[in-house]
């Protein structure tokens, strides 16, 4: 019966439209953006966690290797510099700001690596329980940083892709035309493997 068919078509169109509208991406872009921001705050939390471990580490090392003043000072200064560079969610679209942040953290990583290398020369320090615990915490934190960065990069890619691919690109050009793609981390050599700590 033609009446049934046309009414079915009509019903399906209504239902299809009501389903397609939300799934066609109006919600997608803000959702992905919020997820990327959340992943960024995870990254910052892990970096902050590393920064929080450092005073304890420095004072422990100082107890055994006070003469290594240069290395210790370098770590303290690098930490101060790294905690000063702040990025909030609105800065995430600026690749320069992100690079600034990344550079400061990489400097801290370098200083930490030198400190740990120097600690190898002090067997008393290496067997100190506090130092051992700090070392494993540091290693764990570096790993968490790596995981948080990967998650952030995935979230940013999803968001940037949504800004450009069909069908969400329609919403990107109209309702969300103010949103710019978010910046990713630039890969640095050796940044992927955490500093190896040998017992």
């Amino acid at each position: 019966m033609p009446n049934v068919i046309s009414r079915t078509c009509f019903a399906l169109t209504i239902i299809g439209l009501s389903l397609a509208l939300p799934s066609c991406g109006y919600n997608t872009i803000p959702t992905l953006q919020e997820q990327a921001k959340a992943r960024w705050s995870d990254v910052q939390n892990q970096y902050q966690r590393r920064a929080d471990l450092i005073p304890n580490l420095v004072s422990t090392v100082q107890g055994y290797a006070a003469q290594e003043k240069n290395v210790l000072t370098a770590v303290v200064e690098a930490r101060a510099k790294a905690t000063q560079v702040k990025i909030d969610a609105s800065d995430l679209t600026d690749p320069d700001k992100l690079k600034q942040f990344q550079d400061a953290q990489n400097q801290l990583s370098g200083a930490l690596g030198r400190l740990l290398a120097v600690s190898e020369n002090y067997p008393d320090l290496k067997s100190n329980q506090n130092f051992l615990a700090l070392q494993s915490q540091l290693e764990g934190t570096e790993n968490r940083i790596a995981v948080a960065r990967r998650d952030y990069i995935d979230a940013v890619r999803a968001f940037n892709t949504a800004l450009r691919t069909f069908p969400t690109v329609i919403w990107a050009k109209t309702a969300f035309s103010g949103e710019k793609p978010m910046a990713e981390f630039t890969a640095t050599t050796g940044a992927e493997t955490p500093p190896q700590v040998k017992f």
Partner: protein
Amino acid sequence: MSAGPPPFSFAGGAARVVFAFIALLCANQAVLAVNFPGLTGRIVDQANIIPAETRSAIEPKLADLEAKSGIQLVVASVSSLGGEEIEPYANELFRTWKLGENTKNNGVLLLVAPNERKVRIEVGYGLEGTLTDALSTVIITNAIAPRFKAGDFGGGVSRGVDDIITVLTTDASEWQQRPSLRLDDHQTTDPLTWLLIAGLIALVTLLIVSPGFRWFFLNVVLNVLLNSGRGGFSSGRLPGGGGFSGGGGSSGGGGASGRW
């Protein structure tokens, strides 16, 4: 009377776009996932290093742990890390298997890679405050690595599992800070949801289209409502004879690695 332009062409075009998008999403699986062993049980011994007596000794302990606390502790060995470091490999494997409950992220993975001579304890977000990095290091250094070095994989795994369970089940809440559970915020729509949506679409369509169905539907609904007194639903877990699967949890890279 017609209801306007036939929507079939629109439906066809939109469907094609949706299918293309879904295909694109499916293509974005992590490359690593291809090489992971399946989660066949609480002990996944791909590298075949765990002797049978150890297996039968450990398995009930792991099941018991989950029954009492919901913590999913899984022991796995892989024949090769495929050139990866054990840290990202373990994290990806943990997330693929989704160990631990969805809301609590209380999974632990003990991963042994005998080919690369590396071992790792990967701890879910929710347990990072209990099974800390320092404790994981202690367990690996003292219980696992020395035995592995001597070639005693069964003993190393067994002792490691015992130590992990001890740490997880000892109540130290007075002096340990509870971590903030990172609850994953993306919704996963499983096939059941799609089935329900499809069913709903069919139902609404039929209701609009056919007056006969409307009458039938109302009758059925009234009957169900009147008779819902007896025979309620039985909720709870389906009795899975040996079935074991991850609970939807995730890990953020906590734990520790070691080598021997």
